[in-house]
């Protein structure tokens, strides 16, 4: 029998971000985005910097995550993320600033720059901006 809903739980080291029943979600797996519906086969995957989409009825929501991993069971999904922010929690101004900083660092060919770190910082900032703006679009019914 296929369960009707997925019990979703998102935890970070600092708090439980979310715990509720949802219809569908899309996760940023390391090897690409993947969709999960009730009755999914058991799966353990790592997550990359990206956005999580959560669908519940007609409502769609986004979260920004940095590194983490997800345990998927037919009726349950547990996501352990280093950071997870709901769209409405994201500080857009700060994200923009972080993006500019990271871009600047990547442009300058300075041997002291930690290239990988700057890249990750840029990715995180971009995802935050994307999630925050997509949430705006979703609330206006554009997605």
């Amino acid at each position, binding site marked *: 029998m296929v369960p009707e809903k997925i019990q979703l739980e998102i*935890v*970070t*080291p600092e708090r439980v971000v979310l715990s509720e029943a949802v219809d569908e979600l899309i996760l940023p797996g*390391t090897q690409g985005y993947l969709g999960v519906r009730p009755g999914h086969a058991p799966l353990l*995957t790592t997550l990359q910097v990206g956005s999580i989409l959560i669908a519940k009825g007609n409502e769609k929501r986004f979260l920004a995550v940095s590194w983490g*991993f997800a345990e998927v069971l037919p009726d349950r999904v*547990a996501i*352990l993320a*280093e950071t997870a922010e709901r769209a409405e929690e994201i500080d857009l101004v700060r994200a923009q600033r972080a993006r500019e900083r990271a871009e600047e660092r990547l442009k300058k060919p300075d041997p002291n720059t930690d290239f990988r770190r700057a890249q990750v910082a840029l990715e995180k900032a971009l995802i935050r901006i994307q999630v925050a703006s997509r949430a705006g679009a979703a609330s206006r019914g554009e997605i």
Partner: protein
Amino acid sequence: MPNLRDIRTRIRSIKNTQQLTYTMKLVSATKLRRAQEQVLAARPYARRMLQVLNSLATRAHPESHPLLQRRPEEKLELVVVTADRGLCGGFNANILKTTVGEMRLRQGADLSVTAVGKKGRDYFRRRRFVLRKELVDIFRKVSYIHAAELAQDLMQRYVSGERDAVYFVYNEFKSAIQQRVVVEKLLPIERLPDEGRLLPVDYLYEPAQAEIFEQLLPKHVEVQVFRALLESAAAEHGARMAAMDSATRNAADLIDNLTLNMNKVRQAGITKEILEVVAGAAALE
């Protein structure tokens, strides 16, 4: 004989101090509650991660991971976690005493020290001991990012072979009024604690098991560091609360004694005056 006015001034000043210690006690109690909540909030994440790690460890080949490699311990790193502030009883002193003891014990080894917290840093500075790294002012709000950065720095030093082992010295939170100094080996990872049952299901893995394992192990170290910092923060507030409670009680005792003394002096003064009046009257007759 002590002056009546002097005693009064003293009582007033002690009352002020008492008010201060009492307030500090209340503030610490509130902060302790918040710190305790944070410790609790960090648990589900750590437990889940251990479950997954344990279940992967049986399938992957964990011996090969660089964080598990054991070497003869010749070059050591000590991470000393103290508070940023004092007025918390033996909290900082105990940590530093243990640290110095450990350092004596390993006199032959090549030691480097990382100090977390102002009190520890100042202690080593006063003794002209050069710290490798210092991390201060993080206890106002312990965030995972601080812990992750510290852990990454330590792991990098360990993996590169600069250090053979990393130890943590910190106060473990036992209860609101009890702390215990522990010396814990962070690296190499000795073995994973068996907390949490193995995951019952056979999963699809994406990417492969070994790869997930390799990504998870460093996170495990980060979580350990985070936990140590949270424990220390909670223990600090507990220690300060207890210290301020006994300070408040000591102040009350002092005030009682001084008040008794003051009354005695006052009484003696009155008696003396009456005697003088009586003597004066008698002289007139």
